[in-house]
Each structure stands twice: as structure tokens, then as C-alpha cells.
């Protein structure tokens, strides 16, 4: 059946197996949540919402990678667009910049186009160099100096995080193809996305069970050293196990990659937490029931995606 699935959807067999494994974990987790909420007296509303949203997210991700590469890139671009939109809705913006903001959205399809055609040099400089230079210039030409620095800073930073950083997922998918005989670019994409998400859950569970000492009490009071270390070690263990199956890395390199994803994921998470705290909001949005907004879900990937991409590119691309 796995062979049939692989040829029908043109997916490497190892990715088919890994996808089935993720679905199996989801089924088991849903069963546990249902049993807990049926027996327990506490409020399981959020946990149920969260689990229901995982079905949607994993369903959409499976569909995107199973359809074909273009669908997967469009799917990732839509995530970037939604994250940028959520970010721009959260921050203070100036009315005079309305037109420029519409223009900034254009950076999403363009950046994903560079990834889609595997133009690495343009992919690397488009947002950090060209968009970074263009938008302040356009804002200056408009002539409004009130809050100029804040407008330039927030827009550049938001574009970097939601467009440039997240687009590394698409670049990994496209450019990784030739460097991963085991499971192709899609195997690398799968590896970083699933591990970053798994790392979030693992840190949460370890923190809930054993959390005592806070890492950043002012930014994210629920983050504890116990959660961080336990979560990262769990991610390292899983990475060691699945790395050789999905990537050209051996056990040791996979463990190191797991550590990179775990720590980067944590940093991306507290980064968005700091933004939300600064703005005085609890969730970045209401798009995903139980999780908050899309930024609340992809926060760890904003760091984990570029960190893993460049880690892999440096050590495993000739």
C-alpha cells in the first residue's frame, strides 16, 4: 500500500511512511484527549479545540506535499501571507502607508517565486537587501516624518520574519531535492516542519509535568528550563531516530540538527511572545481555534526554518 501511495502521489516512500506515522500519532492523541475529557471534570475545551485544529493543519500539510511541488509552494506562500497580514494587523501602522503596505504584500509571491525557480542568490538578497532599501525610500518620498523610524523598523522586521524566514521552507523543498537521495526536498521539509511542531508540543508537555524554573519570566512566564531542556532532548531523540530515514544525515548529524531545531524553535517562540507582550495582546489572532493566530503557530518555524536550512546547506551541500 505504501508503494501504491508513493507512486500515486509521487512522494518518496519514506515520506509516505513518515506521514502515516504522523497521522497515527494524531489518532492516538485524539483518543487520549477524548478519554480525558469524557472522564475528567476539568475544562478540556481548549485541548479539544487544539486537537481539532491539528487535524486541519496536518490535513492541509499532507494535501500540500502530496499534490505536487507547486501546490506545496503556494501553500507555504499562503502561510507567509497570512502571517504577514496578521502581523500588520497587530502593529501600529500609519494611514499614509496604506498603499505601501498593499505593495509589501507583493513581496510574498515574488519571494516564493525565487524559491520556486531555485534562484538562490536572489532568494537570499531580495528581502534583506532590496525590500529593506526600497520601503524606507518610498516612505521618505511620501514625506511624512512622524513615526518614520517606527514605520520603517516594524515593516522591515515583519517582512524578514514572516516572508524571508518562512520562505526558507520552500527553498528547502526545492533546492534540497538533489542533495537528498533518501527522501528528496520534501523529506527535508517534512523533517524540519514536523520536528519544530513536535518540539513545541514536547516543551509544553515537559513544562507542564516538571516545570519549576522560569527561563524568561517577563516574556513568557510559562516557559521553564525543565520544559526547554526536556523538550529539546526529546526532539534530539526523535531527530536521531528519523533523521537517517528522511535526510542524508547520519545519526550524529541528525541529533545535532534536532538540537538546532529545538533551540531555534524555542527562540522563535519567545520572540513572538515578546512582540505580543509589547503590544499587550494574548494571541496574535483568532484564525486557529485553540492555538490563537497563525503567528502563534509558526513562531518557532520563523527561527527553525532558516536555522535548519543554513545548517543543512553548510554541511551537506557540496
Amino acid at each position, binding site marked *: 500500500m505504501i508503494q501504491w501511495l508513493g507512486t500515486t502521489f509521487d512522494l518518496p516512500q519514506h515520506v509516505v511512511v513518515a506521514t502515516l506515522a504522523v497521522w497515527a500519532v494524531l489518532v492516538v492523541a485524539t483518543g487520549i484527549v477524548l478519554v480525558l475529557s469524557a472522564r475528567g471534570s476539568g475544562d478540556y475545551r481548549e485541548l479539544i479545540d487544539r486537537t481539532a485544529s491539528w487535524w486541519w493543519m496536518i490535513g492541509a500539510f499532507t494535501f500540500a506535499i502530496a499534490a505536487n511541488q507547486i501546490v506545496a509552494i503556494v501553500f507555504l506562500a499562503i502561510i507567509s501571507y497570512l502571517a504577514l*497580514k*496578521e502581523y*500588520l*494587523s497587530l502593529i*501600529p501602522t*500609519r*494611514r499614509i502607508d496604506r498603499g505601501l503596505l*498593499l505593495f509589501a504584500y507583493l513581496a510574498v509571491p515574488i519571494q516564493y517565486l525565487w524559491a520556486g525557480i531555485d534562484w538562490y542568490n536572489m532568494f537570499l538578497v531580495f528581502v534583506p537587501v532590496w525590500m529593506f532599501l526600497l520601503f524606507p525610500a518610498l516612505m521618505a518620498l511620501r514625506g511624512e516624518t512622524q513615526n518614520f523610524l517606527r514605520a520603517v523598523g516594524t515593516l522591515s522586521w515583519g517582512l524578514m520574519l514572516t516572508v524571508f524566514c518562512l520562505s526558507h521552507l520552500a527553498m528547502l523543498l526545492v533546492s534540497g531535492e538533489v542533495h537528498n537521495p533518501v527522501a528528496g526536498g520534501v523529506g527535508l521539509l517534512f523533517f524540519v516542519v514536523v520536528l519544530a511542531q513536535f518540539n513545541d508540543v514536547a516543551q509544553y508537555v515537559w513544562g507542564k509535568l516538571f516545570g519549576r524554573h522560569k527561563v524568561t519570566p517577563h516574556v513568557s512566564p510559562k516557559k521553564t528550563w525543565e520544559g526547554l531542556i526536556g523538550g529539546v532532548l526529546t526532539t534530539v531523540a526523535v531527530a536521531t531516530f528519523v533523521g537517517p530515514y528522511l535526510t542524508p544525515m547520519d545519526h550524529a548529524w541528525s541529533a545535532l540538527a534536532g538540537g538546532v531545531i529545538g533551540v531555534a524553535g524555542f527562540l522563535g517562540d519567545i520572540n513572538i511572545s515578546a512582540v505580543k507582550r509589547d*503590544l499587550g495582546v494574548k494571541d496574535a*489572532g483568532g484564525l486557529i481555534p485553540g492555538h490563537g493566530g497563525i503567528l502563534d503557530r509558526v513562531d518557532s518555524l520563523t527561527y527553525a526554518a532558516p536555522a535548519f536550512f543554513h545548517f543543512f546547506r553548510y554541511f551537506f551541500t557540496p
Partner: protein
Amino acid sequence: MTRILRFLFFGVVVRGAILLGLGLTVRHRERLPTKGPAIIAANHNSHLDTLALMSLMPLSLLPKLRPVAAADYFLSGKVRSWFARDVVGIIPLERAKVRKGADPLAALEEAFDRGEILILFPEGSRGEPEALGRFKTGVGQLAVSRPGVPVVPVYMHGFGKALPRGSSLLVPFNCTVSVGEALFGGEFDGAQSRREFMTAYEARMAALAAAETVPDWD
């Protein structure tokens, strides 16, 4: 023909644009009326307000949804008038010069008798983006004269950023629709019932507005 056009416009164009272009956060969707007669009374910052509100209701209710809109603005020009009347399905309201003896709200009373759901903007015209304007008391008059008709306060946020008055450039922003608990004109039976109703409505709108933390323009 226009019926089909109406369903296509709201079922496909509006829903698609709002889903991808805006993205709505809806608080207490279950408080929206499921049958007429009823009034949805919202704040008004953008042409998107009406469309977004209508997209929140099931398509089967579409024939019953009637936005109340300014006659002088929406009936000017052939195309705009046809679009407003036939596709959007507005009930035009004279707001400037009301002839003596003519009740401007008579058309709305008739709509109640047909079991329709009115979408009203008590602020009248679209106000300054994201600022609650002064409410006109016509909604209070309607509520008091129909004590059993629920008036659902709705606070809308973000639409004035996405498409403010005076601009035709739609910039994607996340928008919020907060639905409050329904008020009934029948709850206010004092001599000043209309004013009491308006005070209660304003208080409910202010409470919904206060719950929003997302910033306005700098």
C-alpha cells in the same frame, strides 16, 4: 436572474474576498439572529461592513437580509442604484430632507412585517476609521415601536483600516466582528424609552469596543 446574481455575488465573490483578503475573527457568532424580524445594529467605517456582516449569515437567509442604506448616496447613478437595490438588496432610507408627514421609517416597518432582518448603521454615514461616532436615535424608535424585535449590537473593527472612506484601495488587514447580546425595545417602558434604549445600546457597543486591543492608525 438578479436572484442568482445575488447568490453568486455573496456566496462566491464576497465570501472568497473576505476569507482570503481579510480574515475575520468573529466573537459570539451564535448571538446573530437566525430568523427575522430582527435588527443588526453595527458601527460603520467602511463599505466592507455590510458585506462582511452579510457573509456571516447562512446563504439561506440571504433573501431576508436587508441593509438599510442612504437613498441619496446609493440611488445616485444607474449602475450603483441597480447594484445596491437588486444585488445587495438595500432598503433605501431618506436622510436629508424628509417631507412633512412622511414617515422615513415606514419602509422598515413593512420589512418587519415580511419577517426580514435589517442591517442598520445607527452612526449614519461611515465615520472616521475605527472611532465610534454619535448614534442617531432612529434605531431606538424602531425598537420601541416593535418591542419584541431583537436588536443585536455588533461592533466591527479593522474594516476602516482595510477600506476607509475616501479610498478605493483595499489593503488586507485582519478584522474583528464582536456580536453583543440582543436588546429588546420592550425592556424599556419609561416615558423616555427611546433615550433609555439608546443609552443601553451605546453602553453595549462601548463595552464591545473596549474589549478590542488591536491598534488603530498611528
